[in-house]
């Protein structure tokens, strides 16, 4: 850069036609007073980003030069009423009291000019004072933030911020020349060209709001008006403005209320309306569509003129054509939106959904189908739907389709074939799909995997038959032996009679235990265990156990090894007793004759750990994981001889866990079994 003659002073003398450059203090004060006077205050900051580097590497003089060049440039670009100021050591700023959009445009314009002519990079930020509560410094901070964002993005454009957040740049479009009035061929041709243009804008593949903006621009040219607005009606028929485009004059409150009136009128009267406001002229056309026999209003197109206009059939005609295009565009947009929603819902569904045509070829499906059947996209497309039915069920498929065709919808429960040959029980619905005119074109099947449900049903019915059998068995003995004693009376030897009576007693007790077990299981299922805890002495429970099992055939001995620090628990006494009975009962079943069953306890933090140990054959590894499951019975000779329901340990687990404790076991084949469970020591 050629050196300038002499060193310049920091404050450059103002150029003849540009405003004086204010220093930081004065400038900030000016901004403050503008904000306080409630004017819309906007600050444009031009940040010379490399200035500090230049200052360090090339010296103060050079830095000053660079900055002054920037000042000159900016001041040449701004209008007289806009004030210029220095901020910081490397920023030039402009204060504008105009709408933010105007400030943005000015900033953009100046920024582009600076970029094109200066080699020194500048990043530009704009800040608006709306919602601001910390005065000029706050505004400056926002503008610096915006400039920094612009720099981060390469400083090709200007960034804007208000207190509320970033503000996008306003879109400005080149005005199109108004179409000529009249019915000459040329005029009509021109109108057609513009309508075509509008059509292209509306149906282009871009977000609908953008398309609407571009289309509105064309409307201005078509109608020769400086302003146009498009309203769409919601599901309740209320109009909402989707787009307002053109001269801000029409955005003023008075104009807006006139606009609202004319929109309402057009909707009410369902025809083109010409209206005259205090100064402005209005023309409005409803966007109507016919559905069957009904005429519905989907929105309104409004066009505004700076003065009254005489109605013209030509203008009306053009309005109609424009409104038709807008209505179609709107319908398509709503349709696309609905489709997107439907696609999302379908895809998300846990149920499998398949759409087929009338020849049962697969057209569409969701991921749940792939998951349930194991077939991939490539496998499914265009294949026959009976691909999914096992060979024997193809007839059934056809019956199903016929039923759906006949009555519109059919429920089915069937089996689906997976790609790997496996079968999955399913249930679902098959529904006929019709187009708008009521002609069927395909079918949709919605179905789900019911393996779990069937499993549950099977378990339930097995349980019921099990209960039935288990309860009838002791009843048979009780009833039968009672009958025997009655029938043979004195003919019966005394010891035989005693024997039969003791069997009756045994079986009655057994029946009682079974009923209790089944009731417990029901309670477990219903989550209604509800322990009623109190302090329970473990040794008292042990005494009761000894009594209960005194006559047990194994003649086993009970050993009590309760720790003095773990002698009582905070629990429901009956339920703990039940747990001990079940555990001891199991131990006794497996303990060798005259063997020992040991009940011990020890403290475990807030809990007491209780152990029931036997000297039986132990439990194999593969059974240990299942042993607490309902209905699980180890398959060995002991369990075959002593019929049971496999519920005892499941009940123990339920009770212990309802108290907040844990239950587990340690065992090894040949080395006995130890069942452990914990219960709270105190409340």
């Amino acid at each position, binding site marked *: 850069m050629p050196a300038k003659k002499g060193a310049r002073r920091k404050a450059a003398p103002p150029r003849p036609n540009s405003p004086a450059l204010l220093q930081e203090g004065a400038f900030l004060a000016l901004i403050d007073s503008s904000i306080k006077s409630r004017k819309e205050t906007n600050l444009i900051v031009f940040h010379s980003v490399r200035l500090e580097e230049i200052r360090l590497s090339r010296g103060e003089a050079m830095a000053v030069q660079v900055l002054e060049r920037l000042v000159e440039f900016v001041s040449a670009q701004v209008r007289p009423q806009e004030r210029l100021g220095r901020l910081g050591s490397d920023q030039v700023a402009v204060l504008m009291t105009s709408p933010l959009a105007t400030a943005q445009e000015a900033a953009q314009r100046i920024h582009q000019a600076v970029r094109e002519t200066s080699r020194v990079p500048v990043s530009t930020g704009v800040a608006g004072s709306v919602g601001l509560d910390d005065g000029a410094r706050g505004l400056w901070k926002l503008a610096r933030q915006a400039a920094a964002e612009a720099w981060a993005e390469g400083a090709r454009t200007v960034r804007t911020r208000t207190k509320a957040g970033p503000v996008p740049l306003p879109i400005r479009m080149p005005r199109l020349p108004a179409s000529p009035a009249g019915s000459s061929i040329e005029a009509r041709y021109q109108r057609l060209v513009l309508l075509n243009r509008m059509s292209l804008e509306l149906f282009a593949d871009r977000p609908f709001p953008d398309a609407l903006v571009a289309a509105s621009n064309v409307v201005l040219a078509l109608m020769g008006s400086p302003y146009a607005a498009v309203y769409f009606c919601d599901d309740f028929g209320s109009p909402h403005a989707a787009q307002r485009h053109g001269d801000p004059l029409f955005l003023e409150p008075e104009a807006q209320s006139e606009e609202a009136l004319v929109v309402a009128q057009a909707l009410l009267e369902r025809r083109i309306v010409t209206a005259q406001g205090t100064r402005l002229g209005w023309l409005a056309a409803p966007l109507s569509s016919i559905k069957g026999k009904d005429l519905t209003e989907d929105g309104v197109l409004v066009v505004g003129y700076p003065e009254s206009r005489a109605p013209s059939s030509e203008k009306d005609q053009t309005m109609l054509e424009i409104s038709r295009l807008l209505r179609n565009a709107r319908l398509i947009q709503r349709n696309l939106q609905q489709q997107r929603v439907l696609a999302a819902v379908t895809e998300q569904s846990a149920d499998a959904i398949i759409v087929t045509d009338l020849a049962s070829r697969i057209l569409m499906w969701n991921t749940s189908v792939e998951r349930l059947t194991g077939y991939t996209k490539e496998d499914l497309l265009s294949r026959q739907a009976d691909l999914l039915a096992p060979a024997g069920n193809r007839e059934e498929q056809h019956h199903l389709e016929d039923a759906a065709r006949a009555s519109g919808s059919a429920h089915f429960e069937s089996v689906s074939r997976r790609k790997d040959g496996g079968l999955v029980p399913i249930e679902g619905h098959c529904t006929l799909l019709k187009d708008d005119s009521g002609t069927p074109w395909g079918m949709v099947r919605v179905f789900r995997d019911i393996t779990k449900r069937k499993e549950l049903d099977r378990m339930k019915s097995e349980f019921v038959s099990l209960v039935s059998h288990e309860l009838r068995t002791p*009843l048979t003995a009780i*009833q*039968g*032996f009672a*009958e*025997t004693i009655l029938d043979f009376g004195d003919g019966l030897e005394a010891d035989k009679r005693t024997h*039969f009576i003791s069997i009756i007693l*045994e079986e009655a007790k057994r029946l009682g235990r079974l009923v209790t077990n089944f009731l417990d299981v029901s309670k477990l299922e219903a989550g209604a265990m509800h322990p009623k805890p109190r302090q329970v002495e473990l040794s008292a429970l042990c005494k009761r156990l000894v009594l209960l099992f005194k006559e047990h055939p194994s003649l086993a001995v009970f050993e009590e090894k309760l720790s003095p620090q773990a002698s009582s628990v905070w629990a429901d006494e009956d339920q703990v007793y039940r747990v001990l009975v079940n555990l001891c009962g199991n131990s006794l079943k497996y303990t060798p004759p005259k063997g020992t069953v040991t009940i011990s306890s020890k403290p475990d933090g807030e809990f007491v750990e209780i152990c029931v140990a036997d000297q039986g054959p132990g439990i194999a590894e593969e059974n240990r994981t299942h042993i607490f499951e309902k209905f699980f019975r180890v398959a060995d000779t002991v369990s075959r001889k002593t019929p049971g329901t496999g519920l005892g340990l499941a009940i123990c687990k339920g009770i212990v866990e309802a108290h907040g404790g844990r239950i587990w076991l340690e065992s090894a084949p040949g080395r006995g079994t130890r069942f452990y469970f914990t219960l709270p020591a105190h409340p």
Partner: protein
Amino acid sequence: MKRILVVDDEPSTGALAAEYLRLSGFETVLCEDAESALKIIASESRFDLIVLDKRMPGMSGLDLCAALKKDPATASLPVILLSASVSPSLTASEAGVSVCLSKPFSPKDLVSAVSRLLA
């Protein structure tokens, strides 16, 4: 004296059937499962009737009945089935069961069924 084999895994029911039949004048042999029943039939002298429990671990009463019907030595033996289900079972008569008694059964009914079949 007529010999009756009672097959039931449940000790109390088996004892009931065996005792009552004995008191009513029949010679009875009691065993606990289908396998031992087949062994006893093969090794010992003839039986005149068999009383089976339907639900047993291992080979069920129905399977045992079918096996007996297949073997020409035992095909003509009358079979009484004791079952916990209420409704008469079609499969029971298909398997060759002569009479089906549902539990809890009265031992008197058992004796009259036996008498009828051995008459």
